[in-house]
Each structure stands twice: as C-alpha cells, then as structure tokens.
C-alpha cells in the first residue's frame, strides 16, 4: 500500500483518477498491442498529429508500425452495428516526432472513444467527461469548444475561394483578425460576410453571450441547423456546473476532412500547450467504411511533468552509513526500525548529489550515531 502521496507522480495520480471516472460512466478499458500494421496509418496520414511513424518488418514480412495513434486502432476493432454504442477508455503509450526536437518521443496518452449510433446525450457526456478529466488534474483549467459544422457552414456561405478558405482557416486558428480581413478584401468578400467570419474570432467566452452574438448573423439553412445542434449541447453545458470553465472558442479546430461536429481543446494553468484534444470525427468513420458516428478525446499525460510539483524537500530522509564488517542481521534490523517512519538509504558512503535530512552511522554492535542533521 502506498502511504506517501509525494512519491506518486502527477501522471500516475491522473491515470488512477481518470480510470475511476471513465468506469463510473460505463466505459470499459481497451488494451491494445504496441504494434499495428503500417497500412492503417498510410491510409489516414492526415489524421495523425505527425505523419512520421517508426516502422519495422515483422517475421512474416508485414510492415508494422509502433503506434503513433490510438483512435484508428479502436475504430478498426469496433463493431459497426445499428443502434449500438461502444464506450471505451484507454491508457497507452504512443510514438511520435516531437515538434521541438524533431526526434521520436514516447508519449503517455489517456482518453476515451464513444463509437456507434450517437445520441445528443453521448456527445454531451463526452464533452463533460473531458472537462471533468481536466478538473481531476488541476483546479485551474479551461475547455475551449467549437463546432466544425457551424464553422464550415459559415465558411461555405462566405464566398471565399478554396485557397482563400484554407488561408482564412489558418487565421481563425491563430485569432488573426487583421489578416482574415485582408484575405476577404483581396477576394472581394462582402462586408457582412467578412464581419461574420471575424465574429468567429471576436466572439469567445461563455456560451450564452457568444451564441446570442452569433445568432443574428446566420443566414443559410446549414448555418442555422449546425447552430441549433451546438445550442443543444451548450444548454447541457450551461446547466452542468462546469459552465464557468468551458469557453466557446471557434479558433479551436481540427482537420475538416475528419471532424464534423463539436471539437474541443483543454488547457491547464502552468502547461503552455493544450493537454486535451478531441472531437466528433464522423467523417473519419465514413472514410474507414463505417456507417456510425464517433466522438472521443485524448489527454497527453507526459505534459503533466511540466506542472509545478509541491516542493519535494529531501530526496531521502535518512542516510545510514555502515562499515564492511557489520553483521547483516544487525543492519537489517536497524534499517527496519528507522524506515518504519521515514525513507532510509543504507550504504557504505553517501552517494554524491543526494539531498538528505540527516546522516546516521551504525557501529558493529548496533549503536546508531548522528553524523549530520539538517533540520
């Protein structure tokens, strides 16, 4: 039994808490192999965060990959039955190229996927589980949510060219209103449509304020339909008790080729990048030959290393120095006596670089003497 909270790392603590949370909502654990056939990733390269994958040939000559992603494996192994919803959570290591170092990194990832005939409830449940996951990790957190359907409908009615849309999307993700206006001006977009696009950047914050600012600007059926779908989700959020930690922010985006409905990213104070990312990826399901929908998210637990840990104080409480002629039984008893209350390292010499509260020594007849006390 672990009785010292300090020795549990942030990511380990998070895994326990997340497992318990997801199980409570009927999600079962999905355990998978470290390897997957490379073919699965080649067909869906754009879905991956990084398209570089570690590959090797197995003994039967198949080209395999060290998993860069979990979602694709879960979809591949999911049933595609009408009326069914499969809910799974996972806690796996994935292998990707890190942006800063350009080298492969092992990333600990936890998350969940809800696959099947999705009801509005399932979507709301996943979004709320995402925000609850953040709340289990830290008190200061924010979940930004957007709706790809609504964003896509507004872009579609804007009159922007294909290239213009791609550039405008990049501006939206960067909250770059000045360049978005310049792109619209270059393409001769009407003032109303330009303002509608910029409203996606300018309006961010609590659900009711953002929705009421956006609502009068919507003109097409597609926009109104997507807005209504989003509003239903926002109603659940408003009444969830987590409303103050959820922002509507249309700069949150994911690849439009795969994501269709709600998308979200989670942030924790003290971690410079988003720690949680997810959304509804019905288009990916369709691309993989499935008829049902799906929503899920991943938490990048390796980022928790960057979170401020409470001051750890000493590496070890007590260093117990002994000489070579000591009887092992005497030494064992002494270590047991001391370690009942604190951590103790028995050694011939104090190792370099260890920070300890006190140094004791033991004589051959079992007497303990204090050599150093840093209290």
């Amino acid at each position: 039994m672990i009785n010292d909270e300090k020795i549990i790392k942030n990511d380990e603590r998070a895994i326990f808490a997340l497992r318990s949370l997801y199980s409570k909502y009927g999600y079962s654990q999905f355990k998978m192999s470290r390897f997957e056939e490379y073919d699965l990733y080649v067909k869906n390269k754009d879905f991956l965060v990084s398209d570089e994958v570690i590959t090797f040939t197995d003994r039967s000559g198949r080209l395999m990959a060290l998993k860069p992603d979990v979602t694709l494996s879960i979809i591949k192994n999911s049933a595609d039955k009408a009326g069914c919803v499969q809910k799974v959570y996972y806690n796996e290591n994935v292998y990707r190229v890190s942006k800063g170092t350009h080298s492969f990194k092992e990333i600990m990832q936890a998350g969940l996927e809800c696959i099947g005939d999705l009801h509005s409830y399932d979507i709301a449940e996943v979004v709320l589980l995402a925000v609850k996951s953040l709340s289990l990790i830290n008190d200061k957190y924010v979940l930004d949510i957007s709706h790809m359907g609504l964003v896509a409908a507004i872009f579609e009615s804007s009159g922007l060219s294909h290239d213009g849309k791609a550039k405008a999307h990049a501006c939206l993700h960067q909250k770059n209103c000045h360049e978005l206006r310049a792109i619209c001006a270059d393409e001769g977009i009407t003032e109303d449509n330009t303002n509608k696009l910029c409203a996606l950047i300018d309006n961010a914050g609590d659900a009711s304020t953002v929705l009421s600012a956006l609502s009068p600007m919507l003109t097409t059926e597609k926009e109104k339909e997507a807005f209504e779908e989003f509003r239903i989700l926002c109603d659940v959020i408003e009444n969830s008790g987590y409303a103050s930690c959820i922002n509507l922010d249309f700069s949150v985006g994911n690849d439009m080729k795969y994501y269709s409905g709600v998308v979200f990213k989670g942030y924790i104070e003290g971690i410079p990048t988003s720690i949680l990312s997810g959304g509804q990826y019905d288009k990916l399901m369709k691309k993989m030959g499935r008829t049902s929908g799906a929503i899920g998210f991943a938490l990048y637990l390796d980022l928790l290393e960057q979170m401020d840990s409470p001051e750890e104080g000493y590496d070890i409480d007590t260093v117990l120095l002994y000489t070579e002629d000591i009887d092992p039984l005497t030494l064992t008893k002494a270590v047991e006596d001391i370690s009942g209350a604190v951590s103790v390292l028995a050694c011939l010499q104090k190792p370099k670089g260890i920070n300890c509260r006190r140094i004791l020594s033991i004589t051959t007849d079992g007497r303990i003497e204090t050599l150093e006390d840093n209290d």
Partner: protein
Amino acid sequence: MKTMINVALPKGRLGEKVYSYFKAAGFECPSIEETNRKLIFENPEKGVRYFWVKPSDVAIYVERGAADIGVAGKDILLEYQPDVYELLDMDMGKCRMAVAAKKDFRDPKGRTLRVATKFPNIAETFYNEKCRDIDIIKLNGSIEIAPILGLSDVIVDIVETGTTLKENDLEVVDTIVPISARLIANKSGYKFKNSEILAIRQALEEQVRNRK
C-alpha cells in the same frame, strides 16, 4: 497581487520601438530605460515583466510559455510556424519577403532552381505552390552574394529599402509576402490571463491606430 504578464521583446531597434508603444499604452517600466546589461525588468504596479531576447527567439519563448505575449516579425512566424495566437499587426518593422536575382536573370525553366535563403520553409512553400522544383541552399547571412558567386540562381530574403540589392546589382523579381511586427500570445496563457492580455492588446491597437 496583480497578475504579471511576461512580455518577450526583440532586442535591438525594433524592440525599443515596440517598448515605446507599450509605454505609451500605459504599461511603462522605468528600469528598462536605464543603461545596464540587465535582461529582465518588471513593474509590479502595472503587472508587466519585460525581457529582451534575440528577435528570432521571441516566438519560442511565447510558444513554450516562458512569455505570455511577445512581439515577433511575420517572417519568423511564417518560417517557424509556432503554435501561438497572432493578436495584432503592430504596423512597424515593415518590409517584404521577396525573391531577388541578378538584373539579367531569366528563370532556367528546364532545370532545378537553386535558391539561397535564411528562410527555407517560406521558400519551399512559395515554390511548392508554383510546382517549381527547387534546391534550397540554407545560408545564415550575406545572402546577396550567393547569385553573384554562382552559388544560387535566386535568393529569398527580407527586403526593406532595396539598397543592399541595388548595390550588389540585384533586383526583386517576386514579392512573396509583406512583413511587419506582430503581437503574439501563448495559447494557454491567453486562457488564464485573458483580461490582462486583452487589455494590453486593446491599448496597443489604439497606439497603432493613433500613429498611422
């Protein structure tokens, strides 16, 4: 205690001009104007902490969260593609990213174009859009001599007045993108220090508008 906003400023003339905007916007920090070798300056009353960093590093400090906001050139943002918010065009440090070549240059369409540049990503994106096969020669300075010595056919570089090009018998053959200094913000910092960052952004926007 007032929330502190960490601001990464680019060292040099541009940085000094950027600070003058912050100062006029009400976020002054007197110690930054003293002559010394310090790199970090703060004014707790105004809730700002400034630090000078190499201009090309501003985006890294902001992306990694060591700075909440910073001012970086659009050239750096396009080249390194940091995952940050770009909140404001500061309308200063204006120049353009351009393709330049010797005055008698004709594009050798039958072979790979050799491009010397400090900005390989910008050059690659520009020529990819044109489906032009190129060989990038990454240099770290004195780019202008590359076509003169036959190292490259063209260069992709920042052009401000064009004087250096003219003095080396080069001329602009294509403009890739206009460049200016931009206010950028860390995405996570923007969530948790939102009102403070928005207040700075708004005050700076007013300064930019007034000085136009």
